[in-house]
């Protein structure tokens, strides 16, 4: 085998290895699946209590949720948004 042939084989092997590595990395990346979740953010009118929960049909921003567990003021939905969660 001439030195040129050895170099050619080495280059081909290196390319094959790089391809295999990139495929493996891509699979690893895609295995981290993300799910979209709709969140309802609830806050007390005085601002001393806030919490997040899953969106329920009938929720809207401004909806009164009851009384604040801390100060007894009105608890209201302040925003509804979609968040990506890794599963």
């Amino acid at each position, binding site marked *: 085998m001439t030195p040129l042939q050895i170099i050619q084989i080495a280059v081909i092997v290196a390319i094959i290895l790089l391809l295999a590595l990139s495929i493996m990395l891509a699979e690893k990346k895609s295995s981290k699946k993300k799910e979209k979740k*709709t969140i309802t953010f609830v806050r007390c*009118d005085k601002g001393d209590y806030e919490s997040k929960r899953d*969106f329920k049909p009938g929720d*809207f*921003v*401004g909806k009164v949720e009851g009384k604040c567990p801390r100060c007894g003021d009105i608890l*209201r939905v302040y*925003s*509804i948004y*979609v968040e990506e969660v890794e599963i």
Partner: protein
Amino acid sequence: MLLFLTLFLMMFTNIGQKLQLMFMTANLRSKLIILERMRNDSLARSEKVLSIAGSKNPKRTVRRLTEFFVIEPVNIEPTDIIRRLSHILETRRHNIRRILLEDLGEKSKHELNNIEVILEVSAALNYLYKLVRHYLLLGEKTSNLVLIMQLSYLMPHILRIAEAYHKSLDAFEKGIPIGDSLGPLVAFKLAPTAPRHEVVEETVYSIIEVDGRLVYVVKAEGPGATVGKPGEAIEKLIEKEKGNISRIITVDAALKMEGEETGSIAEGVGAAIGDPGPEKIRIERIATKYNIPVDAIVVKMGAEEAIQAMNKKIAEAADKAAEYVKEIIKTRVPKGGKVIVAGIGNTVGII
């Protein structure tokens, strides 16, 4: 010899073009099937929504409303064009509402607004599908490679728009705020507890105080899916105050350019409102009449983000935009002055 013959045929006959046309047409046909699936799904979902709402003939109503069209006013004679356009849009709105009321009977306006928007989304998907099919069939019929090529290059963009419309159905069915609801969300953040007063049809205002300045917060009436008539509302409030308004601040969602970050805030002047014209011109005319400065605050987002359920970045930007508006009020409106803040956009899911 064979290679020479192949090259000769490809270069000096139109076989190459025919092959290209064949491949592109086959590719477009497969994309058209995706569009057709989205269209059919949206029509089926619209029918389901109507059935749940008590429709007597959902299929017929969906067909009537998704094929509904509007003829734009003559524009080679621009005199009075805004009044004519406004009249046509108003007629369209009333006719669509009448068709829905005939089929569904009495319903709450929020429910009707949501149904109307779901049908509008279906109509948009139906139109996109028919438009692509039209150019594909025309290109095939006339063997027009340029037409097929243009359609082929536009197809990824068309599919992105169609997908965004299709995904937006979820938000409207469940009543979740969309990206375009940013303006009304900012208005809500400014006046979460203040009572809402109707100023014109489907548009409300609240009064709050920011550091000794009186603020009229204008937004569409929620939580149904509507954009209201903010231009008419602002005009009415200013006339009611006899022009004694120091500033008008409009807050809206704006399309970002590729590379710009979703949720970034920008400030400018002019009426930030993306209506076909009648509402925007009302703000401009009344502001000019009384020499009132008009500020614009926009939050950037992609076209797809604007019509899909609001994401976290945009929801967080609403808080920042509300603070920005307060800052403008404190620095540019004199103490004791009055200012109008209008949250422009679709108020789905926001009271």
